[in-house]
């Protein structure tokens, strides 16, 4: 039943040998297999993304546009071609464009080209942006995205870690005191988690930024950023409060409710009763007999939550003007900057894969069934 309420994410394939060479080697092997399968999945995922993005032939248009632009520039900048008339120059450009398109294989069927684009995407060779530029002035999609990644990671890491530990400890506390008023209040509040973080963000902005004026409307740091390191960190902190709070409000009730219920179900197991009869302290029981066996499921549900929350981050960043990937994507939509839109879709695929992998790895660390190698969880 527990597996029905908290579905397993990974179809973990573990070696089925009876006796392994040692748990660390097992872990390494497990990790390796996981990495490879995940990589294959990422490749297929990115390929599908490209197929979807190309439905209007957009990837080709981007490439062709870039070729024409760079050739026109190189022809007009070439001093040895100055004497040519405009018509001669145009025929020259057209001839070179055809040549270049042939070189890049744009005259080939789509299937071949999509594979070529796939290899470029996997190596993050994402082309040039049409309108957006990175703060350092680069027009390469890769640079723009890499520049936007740290703010997103800062926001996501802060919010998710806070959410994870807060709801875990709160759930433990409630499972110890279940039936109390606080417990009932949290159960009653859990439908509030159906609204996404940006939605609460708007309310928070309205209250704390607009009406009360206590906290900034958005952004990551005050403009201009304070010189002193301490003041700058404080400014980051002040700007983090509202988005992180919005994230917490939208995640905490269902998180606490789910885990509290889960802990309660597990603490009714016979071996917990036995431990209680043995006279172990409740803290000891919790740590050894409730938390330990539920850890894989906790991590799984956390992984699922994080994966579903990645998309919420896009809009949360937009609402809070947070200079991360999400807002970049939002601006790219506004400007129809297709290379950036496709590029960020690919980056998100990578981020999702990284999340899945990281959590699978932790999963392997805490799940004795994986380490000992007696078959994976029956997902």
């Amino acid at each position, binding site marked *: 039943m527990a597996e029905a309420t908290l579905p*397993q994410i990974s179809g973990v394939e573990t070696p089925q040998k009876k006796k392994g060479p040692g748990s660390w080697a097992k872990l390494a092997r497990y990790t390796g297999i996981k990495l490879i399968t995940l990589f294959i*999945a990422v490749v297929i995922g990115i390929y599908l993304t490209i197929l979807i993005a190309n439905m209007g032939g957009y990837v080709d248009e981007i490439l062709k546009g870039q070729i024409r632009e760079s050739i026109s520039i190189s022809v007009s900048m070439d001093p040895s071609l100055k004497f040519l008339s405009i018509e001669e120059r145009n025929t020259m450009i057209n001839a070179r464009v055809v040549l270049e398109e042939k070189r890049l294989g744009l005259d080939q069927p789509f299937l071949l080209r999509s594979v070529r684009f796939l290899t470029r995407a996997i190596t993050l060779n994402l082309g040039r942006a049409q309108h957006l530029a990175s703060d350092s002035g680069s027009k390469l999609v890769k640079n723009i995205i890499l520049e936007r990644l740290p703010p997103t990671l800062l926001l996501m890491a802060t919010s998710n870690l806070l959410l994870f530990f807060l709801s875990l400890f709160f759930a433990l506390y409630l499972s110890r005191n279940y039936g109390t008023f606080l417990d009932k209040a949290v159960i009653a509040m859990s439908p509030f988690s159906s609204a996404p973080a940006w939605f609460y963000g708007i309310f928070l902005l309205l209250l704390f930024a607009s009406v009360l004026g206590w906290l900034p409307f958005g952004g990551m740091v005050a403009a201009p950023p304070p010189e002193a390191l301490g003041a700058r960190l404080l400014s980051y902190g002040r700007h983090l409060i509202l988005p992180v709070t919005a994230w917490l409000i939208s995640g905490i009730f269902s998180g606490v409710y789910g885990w509290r219920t889960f802990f309660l179900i597990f603490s009714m197991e016979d071996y917990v009763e036995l431990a209680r009869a043995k006279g172990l302290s409740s803290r000891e029981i919790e740590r050894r007999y409730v938390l330990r066996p539920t850890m894989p499921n906790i991590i799984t549900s956390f992984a699922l939550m994080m994966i579903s929350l990645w998309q919420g981050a896009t809009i949360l960043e937009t609402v809070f003007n947070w200079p991360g990937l999400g807002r970049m994507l939002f601006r790219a939509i506004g400007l129809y900057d297709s290379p950036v839109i496709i590029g960020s879709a690919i980056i998100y695929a990578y981020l*999702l894969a990284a999340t*899945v992998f990281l959590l699978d790895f932790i999963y392997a660390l805490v799940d004795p069934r994986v380490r000992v190698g007696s078959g994976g969880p029956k997902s």
Partner: protein
Amino acid sequence: MKSLRRMFKDIAQYPSAIAGVVLILALVALAIYTVIAIPYNEAIRLWRGGEEVWGDYPRLAPPAWTNIFNKEKQPSTIVRNSSDLGSGVTKEVKPIDETMTDVIFTYSFDYDADVFPQEMIVFITAKFEEKGPFVSMFWITPDGREIRLGEVTAKASETYRFNQDDRLLRRLKGVVPEVALFADPEKETPTVLKGTYQLRIDAITFEEDSDLEAKFVSYGTVHGLAGTDHRRRDLTVALLWGTPIALSFGLVAALVTTVTTMIIAAIGVWFGGVVDDLIQRITEINMLLPFLPILIMVGTFQSRSIWVLLLWVILLSIFGAAIKGYRATFMQIKEAPYIEAARSYGASNWRIIVSYLIPRIIPVLIPGLVSGVPAYVFLEASLAVLGLGDPVLPTWGKLINDAYGNGALYNGQYYWILEPALLLMVAGLAFAMVGFALDRIFNPRLREV
């Protein structure tokens, strides 16, 4: 039938679920009323029509009921039209000679608000061959003062905006007309002088068949049930039409994805082997597909129509994480003796899946379906907030997007954001509360704790 009645009995034990059901029914009723009262084309006209639809509405006005909370009473919009004689408008025609005529309109209205109006405009439509009528306007205050406003030679369609007449502004010593014309001259700080005001429009026509109509609008600072936006549009239309759209988007997406996901899980479990493996792998790959960026790409490159996006949402959600949950449940059911019995009497695969496997999963399915609705309702709003709302239809998400994009939060037009947000919240919470209760009813293990 019996089990259905028992289900209702069980639901009745959860007050929040009853509240949820009531809210859902209210929303459905509102949606049906909307679709009947404002048919699709009428809604599009009201929301996309142009100035002739919302020209008489004030700009960015909060709803009229906010006056309950205001210390100072905000004015509503006052419209006096000469084509509607009798309701505060009189028309007097005095021939001057064979061709020239003096047409005098007098508009009277009571002004009892504490706040000055937003702006004032006179719209004139004149009928003439060559020479348009000469129009001069006068303002008569409750204490009997007469203030000369301005003169225009009317074209076929003429708009006289009080606050764009520089000469009037100079005559009023630099005080904007909305304030100067309504202010009590005795008071130091501008205060509204309450009472009956009159506007006299004195027009001289120069041709025999020449005539004119004039409409006076004093724009208020509050409007209707829901207020207006930056383009003077009445938000009621969008709030009402957002209801059927949100409900149908959420319900269709939740229903189709849940049912299809369940069927796929059932097929995978029953046939096992390669089929099951394939479904498992597709699910894992699907989890890596960036859901929102793909929807964004569809919205940018293909179509912003809400129904196209709905199709993609369903396509991307079919192989969702829920498959794993259904799979686990089906695995247990598959081992049940009655399945063994069905197999031994020679039931076909489809018969077993449709008649024996799927009915058993309904208890897991229904709570999941109901709880899934809010996610899709909010997804539509999320897409709209990203600027990928449906190009034609007004939705709640698009209202939030409009409000946010036009700085409603910074400028204090909170009603603009709060109204759609509260409706979204109500819709989301209603389904979430019912789904929550259903989950506890169908999973007895949850009920104990």
